[in-house]
């Protein structure tokens, strides 16, 4: 167990100034540095989530032509810590019908997988600290698919154990969505793995520095992955399962206090996580701009990569939040159609195009991309032409069933 696997379990780039006791394996291959890193990571995630919530409120405010939080702290920046305090002090209600064992366990099962997935993210280098990655795992890509998949159990547990049929229904819906979107996500990742010829996230980032960012080489893959992850974490416009304004929070109806907060913690942590993953997998990780290594500017990325990584990640986070407030929520059938009829085929197209790129070179690949886009345009046009009258009719006959944009309150 220890011999070979140990190499997997050490930090990849240990800075020379770090004392030996920090990096020496202790229990089960864990070193003191690992434990410190874990604690730091946890603190980072929690704090980032609070910042994220503040950002989201501000984004919402600006999108909706208002100001958002203002009064607690400068620009309302302390609003989130205040909310956390409120949640922590709030009573944890357990309904009588709830299952006493499963009900309190569910929030952890939702949050822990998300947190565990952070272990493999290659954060990038920083001066004096070297490359930040807690577990430069060879199977990182499989890991980042496998571990979040366990969230589903937590959601079902939450829905079932609440003893409320609405929460059970909500959990069924959210899990169906989770499973459906997992497929296109994995298919999109196949292209990434083929490009880097590795499942190790660090290697993937480094390969992008050599051959260009995946967002350019795999535009379809990036699109599919990004949309699928948005749906995976039930973010608007894919948040039909939890849809607070319609079905009062899906599986979490009966939760309150910090247990409820855990679900939201998990959701916002997932936003952070998936932005980080998208950055690493498609946006060149910690590279400053595409081709900077080729131009001899690689040293900037090699020294301050962590900052660039964070910057890209935050941009993606903002994009995700932005989408929430400008796009209407989908109906559940549209949601499923989107996964199975658009994202999955698109993922396969991306997969095939990547294979063409790897085997036949760039020119056939470019032709393939062009053809695909043209085909997509034609399909989209015909689809719209076919769909719009009935959609209009639906809106006219049943206005109450029409999803509304949360903020603007406008019918679609």
């Amino acid at each position, binding site marked *: *167990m220890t011999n070979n696997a140990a190499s997997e379990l050490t930090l990849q780039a240990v800075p020379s100034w770090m004392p030996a006791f920090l990096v020496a394996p202790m229990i089960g291959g864990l070193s003191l540095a690992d434990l410190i890193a874990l604690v730091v990571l946890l603190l980072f995630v929690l704090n980032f989530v609070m910042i994220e919530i503040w950002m989201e409120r501000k984004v919402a405010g600006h999108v909706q032509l208002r100001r958002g939080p203002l009064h607690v702290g400068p620009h309302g920046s302390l609003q989130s810590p205040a909310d956390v305090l409120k949640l922590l002090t709030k009573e944890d209600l357990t309904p009588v019908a709830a299952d006493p064992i499963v009900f309190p366990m569910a929030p952890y099962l939702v949050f822990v997988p998300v947190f565990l997935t952070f272990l493999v993210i290659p954060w990038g280098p920083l001066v004096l600290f070297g490359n930040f990655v807690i577990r430069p795992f060879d199977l990182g890509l499989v890991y980042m698919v*496998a571990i979040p998949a*366990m969230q589903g*159990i937590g959601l079902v547990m939450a829905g079932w154990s609440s003893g409320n049929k609405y929460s059970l229904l909500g959990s069924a819906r959210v899990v169906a969505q989770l499973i459906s979107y997992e497929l296109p996500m994995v298919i999109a990742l196949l292209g990434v793995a083929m490009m880097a010829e590795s499942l190790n996230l660090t290697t993937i980032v480094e390969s992008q520095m050599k051959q260009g960012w995946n967002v350019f080489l795999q535009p379809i893959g990036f699109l599919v992955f990004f949309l699928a992850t948005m749906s995976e974490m039930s973010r608007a416009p894919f948040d039909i399962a939890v849809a607070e304004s319609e079905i009062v929070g899906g599986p979490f109806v009966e939760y309150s206090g910090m247990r409820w907060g855990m679900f939201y913690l998990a959701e916002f942590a997932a936003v952070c996580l998936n932005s980080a993953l998208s950055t690493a997998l498609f946006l060149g990780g910690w590279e400053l701009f595409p081709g900077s290594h080729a131009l001899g500017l690689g040293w900037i990325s090699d020294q301050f990569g962590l900052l660039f990584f964070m910057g890209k990640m935050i941009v993606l986070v903002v994009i995700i939040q932005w989408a929430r407030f400008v796009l209407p929520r989908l109906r559940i059938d549209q949601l499923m159609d989107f996964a199975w009829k658009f994202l999955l085929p698109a993922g396969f197209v991306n997969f095939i195009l990547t294979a063409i790129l790897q085997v036949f070179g760039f020119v056939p690949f470019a032709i393939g991309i062009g053809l695909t886009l043209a085909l997509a345009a034609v399909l989209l046009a015909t689809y719209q032409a076919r769909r719009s009258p009935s959609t209009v009719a639906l809106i006219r006959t049943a206005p109450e069933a029409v999803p509304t944009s949360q903020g603007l309150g406008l019918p679609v």
Partner: protein
Amino acid sequence: MELSAVAFYVVAGVTLVAALGVVVARSVVYAALLLILSLVMTGLIYLLLLADFLALIQILVYGGTVSILLLFALMLTPPETRPELNHRGWALGAVTSGALFALLLVASLADKWPAAGAARHISLVDLGRALFSTWAVPFEVASVVLLVALLGALTIARSTSPGSKIARRASA
């Protein structure tokens, strides 16, 4: 004792307890949750046996998908209305499985097994090579089996209520 050995005994113990829970639990949802626990623990055992890819696959397939399927199936079917029947054949089951266990125990302990060599981690590259060269045909067959199972499950589970497409086609 090595740490990994300790970890193995702990994980194995948890697995066995969870498995026992699966087969004796009154509540079917508890049984399912315990089964998931047991399967995830199995994944950990794979990890301890240096089969990290298999461990992740185990967690992905069982922890992520199969378990949810099971829970769905349980939710779509009603709880047993006669819970007292839920364990009717327990004596026969206990005797049979006990006898089988006794036999396996004797078989496992009575003979000298080859001494364990130095466990070696198998890299994903080797595994991929084996899967796509030596085991290419079984691999493809497995994919076909999956496809068939997918289509079969779809066909079997599809609604045949009156007015549905299938029912209309069947009556046509």
